[in-house]
């Protein structure tokens, strides 16, 4: 029984590999309940009036794409499903590539570039640029991602500052991200914000949700699956949930086994004394 306390880590790794491989290749299709936060984010976007202007700010880095990518794709797909005007932007160097990757992963639903959506690419300067963009976006960005002057893009003619946006959707990891938007967009200009975060950083944003400065802060992995169910477009989020479920159970099983071994070991040690 003492061996339970010191299971070879290769056995642990092999168990995890087998579980994830089986669940990925033959998903069980475990049912999924929609959480209150995901429903709130979805309803907020559903209730936007036709023609509303939305800022989609993809502030993921490469490392965050694994967790936040499916949610980012689901958010953008939902925005494209509705008759909205979407401005895509990123404040991190990796954002530009990930915006393009997200655009190639969604169904554009016949939306026209320059009329229904525009990609402004990466803007350097972090939160300072975010603040400048909110005050007068043409002072910070003159052209779109492809080099076209903003004044030549039909949908940008009516957009000059944060006051012209109805919502910010911000899948992000790290700075400036949602906190920057709270400081520079929500407080001065009262623009609502929806964000998705890695699960371990969500507690940092829940006080903002409770205070009303954020509409919703979604834990990326789980909420991406829920969102895909809501928009009826299954993707990587749902595909990962079975592996997440069984992996969690396996981890809990190993923890319980380890604790049984520890208790046994301490009792054996006490008996010998």
């Amino acid at each position, binding site marked *: 029984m003492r061996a339970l306390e010191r*299971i070879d*880590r290769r056995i*642990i*790794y092999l168990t*995890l590999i087998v579980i994830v491989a089986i669940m990925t290749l033959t998903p069980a299709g*475990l*049912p*999924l*309940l929609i*959480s209150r936060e995901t429903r709130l984010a979805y309803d907020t976007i559903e209730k936007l009036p036709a023609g509303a202007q939305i800022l989609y700010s993809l502030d993921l880095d*490469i*490392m965050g*794409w*694994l967790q936040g990518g499916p949610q980012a794709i689901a958010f953008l797909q939902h925005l494209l499903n509705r008759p909205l005007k979407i401005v895509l932007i990123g404040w991190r*160097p990796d954002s*530009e*590539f990930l915006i*393009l*990757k997200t655009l190639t992963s969604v169904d554009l639903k016949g939306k026209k570039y320059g009329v229904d959506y525009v990609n402004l690419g990466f*803007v*350097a*300067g*972090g939160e*300072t*640029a975010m*603040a*400048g963009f909110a*005050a*007068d976006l043409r*002072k*910070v960005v003159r052209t779109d991602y*492809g080099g076209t002057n903003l004044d030549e893009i039909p949908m940008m003619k009516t957009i000059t500052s944060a006051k012209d946006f109805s919502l910010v959707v911000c899948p992000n990891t790290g700075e400036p991200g949602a906190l920057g938007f709270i400081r520079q967009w929500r407080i*001065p200009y009262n623009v609502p914000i929806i964000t998705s975060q890695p*699960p371990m950083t*969500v*507690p*940092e944003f*829940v*006080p903002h949700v*409770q205070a009303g400065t954020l509409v919703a802060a979604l834990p990326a*992995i*789980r909420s991406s*699956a829920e969102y895909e169910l809501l928009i009826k477009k299954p993707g990587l989020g749902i595909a990962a*949930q*079975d592996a*997440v*479920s*069984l*992996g*969690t*159970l*396996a*981890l*809990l099983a*190993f*923890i319980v*086994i*380890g*604790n049984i071994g*520890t208790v046994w070991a301490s009792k054996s040690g006490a008996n010998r004394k």
Partner: protein
Amino acid sequence: MLMIADYFLTFSGVKALATTVQRWVVVISTIALALGVANITILHGRIVLKRRGKWYLSLWQIFIMWLIVVMGSVLTTAHPLFRLLFDNMYLNPYNTIVTLLCFSTFAAGYRALKIRTLETAVFFVSALFLMLMLAPIGEIIWAGFPIIGRWVADVPSVGSMRGLMIGAAVGLVAVGLKTLLGLERGWLGRE
């Protein structure tokens, strides 16, 4: 001081000046990226020229960095060849390396979560409910897992996070005031 004034005041002169400064920051940030590329080239170039240690890795670093820079500039980042390189040499390998973390996290959870005291017991029970709140199988096993997990996430966790945030914010205001008043000179390289 200008940025603070811009945040709280509505004078058009202050706003115009603040906007100009914000544009300078955008320009300087863009130049800083180019400076970073130059610095890496110089740093690793010296290693290659002196054949120090694993110099071939530095040579590979310089080659890949400039390949991406040149391809992105000439072909643009939307070009299929650039996207192929980005996806297969950066995104996918990086994510593979990051995924390896899950193995060490798994093994660390097994080794570290040993219930020996009351505190570790509370920690384990909280972690149990939070993990089963996030995993879909939790609500299948017992409907109470997401409810209690939600309470743990929304009440004790948020309460302590709120305390940390307010404490950090108060500390930041103090440091900011000291910096603006010239009492804090560490950023100038002085003690």
